[in-house]
Structures are given as structure tokens and as C-alpha cells.
């Protein structure tokens, strides 16, 4: 796991450290004296020269790399030479000491730049730096968004921009960009940055990787408009950039009226499929719009053509509205019926197997690594492991102190396991609670690490982690069953300062309770008060038990003095009662339990009172009985934005009203954004929905949650080891000693090992990926040596 991650760096480091002294065959690298060198310089021609002491060792890592750079640089018309500084000919380029030697780039006999040799650490760096210096005007290096915007504005309506982010100057990606710039620098404005922040401000994902965007600025006539951007999705290699630019150059949309089987465009040559949107005269305008839209989305992935059915000689199936032509030769075209633009996109994306044309040295992209953490809780806790928590605010219990402590004072105990990520994530919230309660609570906050004191935890009936229990004098411990977060736990602790249910004995007290006068300090923690009337003959025990168990599971229900027999109903009335059914991360589960479709108003900021009124009116008129109306404030719940992105593409203006049928079918319906959110429109829309006249905008995927990645298939590795001969060829699969020993044991073992067909369990996949890895690893290994 470590080795693969470091390989890139290791290559770099080894050059510094190795300093190997073997003789390379320097034949193409010119070796000249200073005088001779300067005499060879031609006007307008670029030349890179490395000045070194004549008596210095003839070889160095740098010279080897320089030697390798000779050919690529010659391709760009740049000559390379090694200049030996001899005593008689003192040149100012000859440094004083051996290790101060530098390389110089001349254009004609003008010095353009000097490079310390360590910046030219390998052939990529040499080519990249030299081109970068030469293409000073063609490639603008910027560091902030403002620069980018200025360039963008300056070029609107004039030229397109190729913007790229590389992690550092001199690495292979940088070389690839420079090589592309050498070819296309006059056609497009190249812009380069190494600032992650700049890339992030463009909204890019995965900023650790090099990015290349094509800014379609030439089309933009309105200066206030932004240039469209297309991200190149392939890794940054010279070849990929070349292909990408070619597809950008191709017309966005072509109209054709011939047999799709015969049509060929530049896309096919580049290995990209073609998508024909079938159009008829009657719907030509709309089709063209759709096609354009599809074309933008598939830019760089497929060619999009508008196929005019009416003027077509060959027959295509009547219902087909999309024709898909693969890049592979001889594959017949597919006629498809796709009613949704997204379906076209996804069809293309799933059916394109662009052979990854990669240059060998850029081969650091690989499939997901099963040794890499993909559990967000584990990963974040791991990343946070070095931060020191103010743990001293909570009392750490041990076997010796546990009983005494929980007997002596009302205590909250967190049972956790030091090695468990979920426990450790929650411990942070727990400590936050301690910080908030510091000096104010009578409740003692304690914790016990069950990894150390497992007996104590077992005795307290704790078998899973994390668990929070409240120990109060004279009462059975109560398990906290709320959200594992600061807010809810704090509520739980505050509200538990009094015991439930509260016995109310007079009308005055009841009124005080309902108005919030009673337990004033707690009112901010509770949202619902429930008052129950009991005859003196009823036992309170039963009431309390059920209330307690419930109360602890939902802190909102703490001020409950009567148990609503139907929990769902209870929540519902509580929501209606508060009149503000905003869904949040914390409270969604209680809405979820109602098992009704959610009618969600997404709003960026607080909700417009008019909309609220309209919806409340509908609630009153019982239009919404079969639904759960609620709203989501993107300001409070930013993750809502991602939900919207899952529903819509492109995002409509906010607010937007959506009906999500979570529990049966997963359809999502959107209230038309061109209609005002007023009662009449809503009623009409709901009626249409009920009548099935509305089309859903999307269906939520119903996929099961499968293992995110395969596991190691040790069983077949073990099998492979027992059938020894086949394993011999697997590199490193066995250690030498093991092999020897195995030979001895083999005879005993053989009869016992059953050659069964290997069980399913994704084993085929496991094998393949392992083989792949193996091969790759050995390859890497060679490279490092």
C-alpha cells in the first residue's frame, strides 16, 4: 500500500541520491568548447547548453537525462550541447566550482534563461522547462482567479482558452501541456497554473490531479456571460491533449441526411462514438435544441449529429429517436428509443470503452486500491488522530473507579473502544458537550475505554460501541438513544435534569407548564410539550417506563407527559404544532418514519412566507394528508445542494418544490418552475400527480449497497500455492523458504487438497485484479531499480 503511493516520488528522489557512476554512451549530445559552442549558435534558433568543468566526471545523472532530452528537443528545433569549460577559454557561463554548473538556454546568441541543474531533474523537466521558457508568450502563467478572468474577458468572442493546472513545474503533465502548447499555442491561448486554490475556485473535483479545461470563449459575444468550459477527463498526456483539442475543434453539431452506418467524422477516427439525434421536419427546432444540449454534454466524449429522417433514403425503425454508432469498426449501429436526455448521456458513458491511450511513464492512474480507506468515518478519524482533544474535561473511568463514581454522583458514561472509528468520532462530540457544560452541569461526564476495561463494559451490558448511559441515584441506568452528536446529547443531558413524566397536581401548574413557565431554563431544549390527564387510579409506572424509553430516543419529545399511542401520529402533530417543518440532517428520520412521500420545498435561505402560507392552507384543507410537507433550507443544510443535483440537471432556480416518493418507487416530481407557488397551482399540480399525469424528473436508484470493493481472495492464493508448479511463475507469491518447505509437504498434502471449482463470491474478479496488480508491481519494481 505504501510502496505504490510513493513510486512517483521515489523516482525523483533516487536521482538525487543515487549518483551512480557508470558510463553512458554519449553520442548524440554534442561536446564542445565554449568558443566552438557560441560559434554554432544560429539566429532565431534555440539552444540549450550545459556548461561543465572539463575535468569533472564525464557522467552524471543530469547528463544522462540531458542526453535523453536531445531527441525530443531536436523535434522542436532546439539543439542541445555540453560545453566543456577548459582553463584557456574562460567563459562567464563557466561556474567557479564543479557543483555550481548550470544549463543555459539561448535563442540565437541571446541568453533566455539559466537553469540550475537540479530544476532539470529529469528528461520531462528539461523539455518542460525549455519549452516553458520559449513559449513565454503563448503560455500565460497565472496564480489567481483574477488573472484568469482578465484573460477570459479579453478573449471573449476572439479565441478559445486552454487552461491547465499541473501540480508542479517540470513534471510529466507539465511537459505534456507544454508540448501541446508548442503545437497549438498560436491557435489557442494557453493558461497554466500550479495553484490548487485557483483550480478549486473553478469548482473542480479531485484537485490533487492535473486538470485541463477548454474554455469556449470564442462563441461568447456577451461580455457578461461566462465562457463554457469542458474538462478533459483523460490523464494529461501529450497524446490525450492532442486528441482532446481535436474533438474541441470539431463542429459541435453536424446535420446529416445519410445512412448513419456510412457517416464518419473525426470522432470515429479518434475512437469516440457518434450519437445521432433523429429529427423530423415538424420538430426540427426542438430537436436541434436538444441535440445541441446533448452535444455540449458529450463534448469530448462523443460526436453528436442531427439526423434528418425526412430526407433520409434508408429506413430506420420508426420509434427510434437516437442512433448510436460505436467507434469500433464493423459494429452495426444501434437504434434506440430514449426519452430522456440523461439516458442518452448515460448510454454513451456506459458504452464507450475508450482504450486508454497512455504513455508508459504516465501510468500512475490505476483502479481503486482495496488497501485504501473508503470509510469516511475511519478515514477522518485517522486523519484527525494527532489532534489533542481536551479529554481532561471528562473523567476517565477504570475498573477500580467505575462503581464508586457512578454511585457517588449522577453521571453520564460514554462506553467506547479506542480502536473503533465510530467511537472515536463520537468521542469528539462528547468532549464538545463537556466543553459546553463546563462548570454548569451537575451531571458528571465520564468515559470508559472498553478496549482497556472490557469486563466493566460487559458487566454494564455494553456489547457494542459507542454507548452512552446515564446513571442517576436510585434509578436504573438509561441508555441514550439519540443522535450521536453534540446537540442532541446536550439536550438529553439538560432535559434529564428533571425526571419524567412530570407530575402536575394543579390547574395552575398545568398552565405554567404549557406556557413554559415551569422549567423555564429547559424550554429552549424542547420543542413539544404534551399534557396528559390521568385518573388517580392509573399507575404511573407504566406511563413512565414507556415514556422514558421514548423520551430518550427522541430528545424533541422530552416534555412529554403523556405517551401518544401512535408514535407516527405524535411526530406529525408535533410538526404541525410547531408549524415549521424544516427538515434537517438531525430530524429527517422522524419524517421518514411516516412512510409518506415527502413534499419538499428547497430554499436557499429562509422560506418565503407566501409559499409557507400556501402550503399551510393546503394542509388545513387536507390536500396534503397523504404527503409529508416540509422544507429544506440550503443555508442550514448545505448537503441539500447535492440532493438537488441528484434530482435536476441543470439546477433550476430556487426555491423549488419537489415531491419525493421515497418509499414506493422512488420517483421524483418537480413542481414546474415556471409556475408560481400559489394554492391554485399547487392544487392543480397535486391533482395531476394523483391522476398520474405528471412525469417524474428522475427515479431514485434502487441499487442495493454492495461491497464497495473486492477483498483479497486468500483461498485461491492458498490453492495456487498448493498446486506448486503453477505458482512458481507468479512473482513473489511465495518466499523461497516456503517454497522449499512446501515441496517437502507437497506429497502429504496433495491427496487432501480437493480441486473444487472455486466458489463464486466475486472470486473471478479478485483473481483478475490480483494478477493485474502483481504484474504491475513487478513492472514498477523494475522501474525503480
Amino acid at each position: 500500500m505504501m510502496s505504490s503511493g510513493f513510486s512517483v516520488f521515489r523516482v525523483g528522489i533516487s536521482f538525487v541520491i543515487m549518483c551512480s557512476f557508470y558510463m553512458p554512451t554519449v553520442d548524440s549530445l554534442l561536446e564542445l568548447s565554449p568558443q566552438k559552442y557560441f560559434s554554432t549558435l544560429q539566429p532565431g534558433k534555440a539552444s540549450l547548453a550545459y556548461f561543465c568543468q572539463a575535468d569533472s566526471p564525464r557522467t552524471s545523472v543530469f547528463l544522462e537525462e540531458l542526453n535523453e532530452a536531445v531527441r525530443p528537443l531536436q523535434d522542436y528545433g532546439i539543439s542541445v550541447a555540453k560545453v566543456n569549460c577548459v582553463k584557456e577559454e574562460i567563459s562567464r557561463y563557466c561556474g567557479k566550482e564543479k557543483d555550481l554548473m548550470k544549463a543555459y538556454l539561448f535563442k540565437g546568441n541571446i541568453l533566455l534563461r539559466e537553469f540550475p541543474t537540479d530544476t532539470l531533474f529529469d528528461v520531462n523537466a528539461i523539455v518542460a522547462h525549455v519549452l516553458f521558457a520559449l513559449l513565454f508568450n503563448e503560455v500565460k502563467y497565472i496564480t489567481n482567479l483574477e488573472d484568469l478572468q482578465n484573460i477570459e474577458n479579453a478573449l471573449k468572442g476572439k479565441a478559445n482558452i486552454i487552461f491547465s493546472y499541473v501540480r508542479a513545474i517540470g513534471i510529466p503533465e507539465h511537459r505534456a501541456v507544454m508540448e501541446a502548447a508548442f503545437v497549438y499555442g498560436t491557435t489557442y491561448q494557453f493558461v497554466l497554473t500550479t495553484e490548487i486554490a485557483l483550480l478549486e475556485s473553478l469548482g473542480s473535483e479531485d484537485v490533487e490531479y492535473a486538470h485541463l479545461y477548454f474554455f469556449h470563449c470564442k462563441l461568447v459575444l456577451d461580455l457578461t456571460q461566462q465562457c463554457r468550459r469542458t474538462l478533459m477527463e483523460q490523464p494529461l498526456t501529450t497524446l490525450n491533449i492532442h486528441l482532446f483539442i481535436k474533438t474541441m475543434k470539431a463542429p459541435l453539431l453536424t446535420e446529416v441526411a445519410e445512412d448513419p452506418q456510412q457517416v464518419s467524422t473525426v470522432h470515429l477516427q479518434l475512437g469516440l462514438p457518434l450519437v445521432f439525434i433523429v429529427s423530423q421536419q415538424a420538430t426540427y427546432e426542438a430537436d436541434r435544441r436538444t441535440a445541441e444540449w446533448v452535444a455540449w454534454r458529450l463534448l469530448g466524449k462523443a460526436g453528436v449529429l442531427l439526423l434528418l429522417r425526412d430526407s433520409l433514403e434508408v429506413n430506420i425503425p420508426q420509434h427510434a429517436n437516437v442512433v448510436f454508432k460505436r467507434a469500433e469498426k464493423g459494429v452495426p449501429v444501434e437504434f434506440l428509443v430514449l426519452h430522456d436526455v440523461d439516458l442518452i448521456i448515460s448510454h454513451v458513458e456506459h458504452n464507450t470503452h475508450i482504450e486508454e491511450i497512455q504513455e508508459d511513464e504516465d501510468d500512475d492512474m490505476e483502479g481503486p486500491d482495496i488497501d485504501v480507506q473508503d470509510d469516511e468515518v475511519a478515514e477522518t478519524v485517522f486523519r484527525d488522530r494527532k489532534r489533542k482533544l481536551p479529554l481532561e474535561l471528562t473523567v476517565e473511568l477504570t475498573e477500580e473507579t467505575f462503581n464508586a463514581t457512578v454511585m457517588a454522583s449522577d453521571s453520564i458514561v460514554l462506553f467506547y473502544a479506542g480502536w473503533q472509528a465510530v467511537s472515536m468520532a463520537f468521542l469528539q462530540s462528547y468532549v464538545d458537550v463537556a466543553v459546553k457544560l463546563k462548570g454548569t452541569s451537575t451531571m458528571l461526564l465520564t468515559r470508559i475505554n472498553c478496549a482497556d476495561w472490557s469486563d466493566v463494559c460487559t458487566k454494564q451490558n455494553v456489547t457494542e460501541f459507542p454507548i452512552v448511559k446515564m446513571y442517576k441515584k436510585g434509578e436504573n441506568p438509561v441508555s441514550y438513544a439519540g443522535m450521536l452528536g453534540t446537540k442532541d446529547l446536550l439536550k438529553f443531558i439538560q432535559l434529564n435534569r428533571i425526571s419524567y413524566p412530570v407530575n402536575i397536581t394543579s390547574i395552575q401548574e398545568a398552565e405554567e407548564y404549557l406556557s413554559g413557565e415551569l422549567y423555564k431554563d429547559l424550554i429552549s431544549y424542547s420543542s413539544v410539550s404534551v399534557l396528559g390527564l390521568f385518573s388517580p387510579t392509573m399507575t404511573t409506572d407504566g406511563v413512565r417506563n414507556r415514556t422514558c424509553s421514548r423520551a430518550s430516543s427522541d430528545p424533541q419529545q422530552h416534555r412529554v407527559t403523556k405517551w401518544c399511542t401512535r408514535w407516527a401520529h405524535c411526530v406529525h402533530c408535533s410538526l404541525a404544532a410547531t408549524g415549521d417543518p424544516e427538515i434537517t440532517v438531525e430530524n429527517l428520520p422522524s419524517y421518514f418514519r411516516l412512510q409518506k412521500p415527502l413534499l419538499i420545498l428547497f430554499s436557499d435561505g429562509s422560506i418565503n412566507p407566501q409559499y409557507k402560507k400556501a402550503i399551510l392552507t393546503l394542509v388545513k384543507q387536507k390536500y396534503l394528508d397523504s404527503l409529508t410537507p416540509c422544507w429544506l433550507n440550503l443555508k442550514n443544510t448545505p448537503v441539500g445542494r447535492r440532493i438537488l443535483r441528484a434530482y435536476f440537471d441543470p439546477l433550476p432556480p430556487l426555491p423549488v418544490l419537489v415531491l419525493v416518493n421515497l418509499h414506493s418507487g422512488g420517483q421524483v416530481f418537480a413542481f414546474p418552475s415556471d409556475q408560481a407557488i400559489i394554492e391554485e397551482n399547487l392544487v392543480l399540480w397535486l391533482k395531476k400527480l394523483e391522476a398520474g399525469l405528471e412525469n417524474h424528473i428522475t427515479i431514485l436508484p434502487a441499487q442495493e449497497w454492495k461491497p464497495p470493493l473486492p477483498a483479497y481472495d486468500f483461498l485461491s492464493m492458498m490453492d495456487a500455492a498448493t498446486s506448486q508448479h503453477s505458482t512458481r511463475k507468479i512473482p513473489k507469491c511465495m518466499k523461497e523458504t516456503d517454497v522449499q518447505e512446501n515441496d517437502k509437504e507437497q506429497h502429504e498434502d496433495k491427496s487432501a487438497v480437493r480441486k473444487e471449482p472455486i466458489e463464486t463470491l466475486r472470486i473471478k474478479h479478485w483473481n483478475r485484479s490480483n494478477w493485474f496488480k502483481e504484474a504491475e508491481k513487478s513492472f514498477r519494481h523494475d522501474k525503480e531499480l
Partner: protein
Amino acid sequence: MGLSAAAPLWGPPGLLLAIALHPALSVPPRRDYCVLGAGPAGLQMAYFLQRAGRDYEVFERAPRPGSFFTRYPRHRKLISINKRYTGKANAEFNLRHDWNSLLSHDPRLLFRHYSRAYFPDARDMVRYLGDFADTLGLRVQYNTTIAHVTLDKDRRAWNGHYFILTDQKGQMHQCSVLLVATGLSVPNQVDFPGSENVEGYESVSIDPEDFIGQNVLILGRGNSAFETAENILGVTNFIHMLSRSRVRLSWATHYVGDLRAINNGLLDTYQLKSLDGLLESDLRDLAILKDSKGKFHVTLKFFLEEASTNQSADAITLPQDDNDNFAMRVPYDRVIRCLGWNFDFSIFNKSLRLNSGNAFGKKYPLIRASYESKGSRGLFILGTASHSVDYRKSAGGFIHGFRYTVRAVHRLLEHRHHSVAWPATELPITQLTSSIVRRVNEASGLYQMFGVLADVILLKENAMAFEYLEEFPIQMLAQLETLTGRKARHGLFVINMEYGRNFSGPDKDVFFDDRSVGHTEDAWQSNFLHPVIYYYRYLPTEQEVRFRPAHWPLPRPTAIHHIVEDFLTDWTAPIGHILPLRRFLENCLDTDLRSFYAESCFLFALTRQKLPPFCQQGYLRMQGLVSTESLRQHRVESRLLRDDAPTGRDLEDSSQHPGDQELLGAPLAPGPLAQSLDSNKEEL
């Protein structure tokens, strides 16, 4: 026996006469459980029976518990480790390195309170066992020698018969279940000519003064032989040690019954040419002759048989007569036999069919993997005598092993006779990884009784929950349902601890280069003791268990996982240990066992029809894990979460990154996931 007389005690007077004929026989007291022997195993069983409130009695011939330890080991040093410090507080973990304590709920009854020595004195063991019996109030009948055990068929009895025990006074005891914990008490003697000249370990002098300037021959190569040698090494002329097969070093075999380093001084002096030496030969081919001066000569039985009966010892041919460089040509002053111990079969009536196993001679009685005698139902062998189950494999012959097998037997009995199912914890599937990690890191039973006792996880329907059973005898896996009262209908995991397959053996070099495995993908080649998890879709059958592949502790599973060996035996590394384990479990169960913050669950809840188990069992029950700000920050950095801050482009920009729509961790979305994973790697 006249047991039939017991029942009609109050019958017609004519029968009274018959009863009178058996003078000792009044009403034989009946017990549900009788335990023979108040040694460690007997007391351990008594403890569990007492805790369960069962009707039991322990019979002990000596006046105090642990009488074996009052004399043995002769040189008084126990070679079981009393490790008082491990740097850990976990009591269960610490038992892994406490080889002397019995299991109890009382922390005062830990051996470390009885001795400070790493290799404690046997007297401390005697004191400890006495305290154990007294403090816990175990019912032990001391000074009671059970002289005879027989069977009485009775259809009403739990097992179709009662065990009738007769003590030295003729008093009888009737038992429904008989638990034999008498250990190995009969010195093993090999019959060969001249064996009468040999002193036994049990009686030889332990005073080195008695060996000054002597030539000593020791027969045997076990710990008692080396212990004896160790004691006199410095005063003898030389010690020769003779055994049938080569010495087995416990560090190479990973078997604590083999020669321990603490006793192996003789190996050192042998190899450093200090006159001592080891020889291999079968004792049964030899003879020992006593010459006129009282010295002993080794010769071949064959020569003795050739010679006529009345020849004087001095006249019998010696090997050196032909081979003048014969190794044992010097006369010995003493020959000491240290050949181990055998089970005492003598008190058991034939009807019990308590036979000796053939595999190890007459050393051990033949029993099943459930420790029940193959000959009679209801008769269990506990403790050292039960070692045939794992002889030379695990620790079942020693306190630190059989304290767990005794507990397993007790759990079997609880289910068989009292309908108490094998204890199990039922947990939601989200706790699966954690519960395994917890056990492999602290469980001492798994650690000591590796390959014999294993934890079993029984999956519930749809794999949304599971039951966790601890320390089940894995050779009985096929009979799990009947033995435990638990159902294994939906697949199961077995958690076992194992050494590497070719790592242990008397001739193995355990210090070879690259012996330790560090990479998770090579975990299956781990050599040192490490957890191995077997997954079965169905409970294996008896046939499958019996005809499992050679060197496999269990039948071939559907899938197997090795947690890579760990130098610190601490298997809690997030990437090295827990992650591969989770992937294995996920792939067996075909589900996603990752944990998610509430925010992610919220997103899934509104954008997908199904939720991962962690969200179902936590978030949807209002128990979601809310992330703190700093964790959230790490989440954004780790690329496992996209930042949701509005970018301002959302609304107008239609040419979105296609990855935007992919949800985090969409299992079928290798694209963006792969990238985010890749980016992680550089930092790890």
C-alpha cells in the same frame, strides 16, 4: 453392584435383609454432577457448576486441592508463565499471558497475587488452588479416594445410566454426569531388561550432592528429563540423555509441552562440547546391565536374549565389543527414567468402556472433541487427561488451555441438561467488524486454545444481525446446532487463531529471514499466531469436518481471511487490519459495511431508495453519527465528501462535471470514487 437395592429402600421388610448384605450401602447420595479430582481442572469445573447453581460434588483423595503440585514438578519450578505486567489493563487480554490462574469473576483469584516469579514455585500453585476452592466455597469432599467407578443403567437417568462411584470406605455415590479431572498420575514405564535398575523421576533424589562426580544417563527428552538434568548439570561428570526421537523445542513447535528454553541448559553444554550429550535410540531395543561394581552398562536386548539365562552380567556382550567406538560404552553410575505420565484407567469398570486412545499409547483416554468419552455418554474427561484432543497442537493439556475447554464443556452441559443455550450476544450487522476486532485483540481462550476453540458468528436472516458465540470446540462444528441450541441457517463465520501452516515443527527454523509478513495481501502467509476467519454459507456436515483437507483445522470454507500477523498482537490498525477484514466480511455478505456520518445518510435517504446498513441501523433510528467540525474538515480534505458550499455556478452552468451526480460511495461508480481513492493514496 447391588444398586437395584437402593430404590426399594422403603419396600417390604423382606428386602431389608438384602440391603443389609451390603453393609456400606445405605442410600447412595445422588448428584447431578460428580467431579473426580480437585486439581485445577476439577476446581475450574466446580466453579462453573457452582456459578450456575448446579448440584455437584468434587471428590479429592488428598486433604487439600492440587495434591499433584505438592510433589511435582520435583524441582518445584513451574514452567507456566506468570506474566504480571503487559502494559495493558484489559483483564481478558492479560489472561493470555497468565498461564496459571483459573477463570473466575474474582480478581483477587489471579495468580499474580500469589507469586512474583515469572516461573513460579509449585508451592504457590498449591496455595492458590486451596484459596480458589475456599474463597469460592466450592463443594469438595477431601480425603475421599474413589476406588471404583461403574455404570448403572437406568432409563430415567439423563444419559440412560448413572455412574456409581465407590470410595475407599465403600461409600457409594450416584452421579448423572461424571467429570473426570484426575490428570495423569501414573509414571510411564517402559519395559526392558534391566529396567528395575532405573530410578524414576518421581522418586529420584533432587539433591545435587548425591550426583557429585557421577556419570548419569537420563531416559526421556521431555521437560522433566531436562529439568532433572538442569539440577545436576554442574556436579556430574557428564549427563547422557537417551530418547527415541529427536528433541522437540517448544519455540520451534509452538507447543508448550515440548522442551522449554528455561530447561534446555543441557542442549547448550552438549553443543558447546562439555561432555554432556543427547542420543536417539528406541529404549525397547536396549537393556541395562548392572555389573559387579554396581555400575550400569547399556547393551542391546538382542545380546541379552542370545546369552543363556544364568550368565553373570559381566559376561554379556556389550555393543562396544564389536564396535569399539560405541557412544554409550562408559559405565553409568545412575540411570534415571523421566518418561512422562499416563492416565490412571484402573478405577474405571470395563462397562464404562473408557479406552485409551491408540494414537498416543495408553497415555490418554479416548474422547471426542466435545471431551465426552467415546465409550459412555455423560462421562467427560477434563484437564490434562483431555489432552488427546489437541496433543502436541494446542494448550489443552495445561491450565492456561483447559480452563477454557472446561468452560466449553460446562456450556455444552448447560444446554444438554438445563436447556440453557450457549451464551451468545445478538448484535446488528454494523457491529460485525468491531465484534471480531474486539475478540481477536483480547480473547484469551482463542489465543491459548488456538485451533481447538474458536468463536462462531451465526448470521441471522438477510444478514442484518448476528449472534456471537465464544470459544466453541471447532471439531464439533457440524453438531453446533444440537450442542448449543442456536440456529445456523444463514451462514456463519468461524474465528480461529493459527500459526503459519509450515511454521511449526521440531526441525523448523523459526528465525529465518523474512519470517514475518507485513503486507496485507500476503496475510495468508503469516507465520506467527494470527486470526483466521472462515466463512461458510452452510454449516459443514460431520463428513466435511472429518474429511477436511490435511493440516486444516476446519473444512474448506467458502472464503477465508487472514488478518496479517502482528508483532505486537495488536490487530487494530485501521488500514492494515480492520479495512481488509471489513472488505472480506462485505464480500461474504454482499453488502456495504462502511460507517457513514449522519449527513451522508441524509443524502442517501433522499437520493436513493435503499440505505446502507449503517444508516438503516443508526441514522434512521435517530442514532446517526454527527460529525464535528474538525472531522468534517478532514472529510472534505479526504475527498470522501464534496464540499457543498454553493459555487455560484450551480444554477447557470449546465456543462457540469459529470461526476457531480455520482453520490459518494455509489458502489457502482468506479469513476469518481476511483479518483478520490487515488488521491488519498498519496497522503497515506
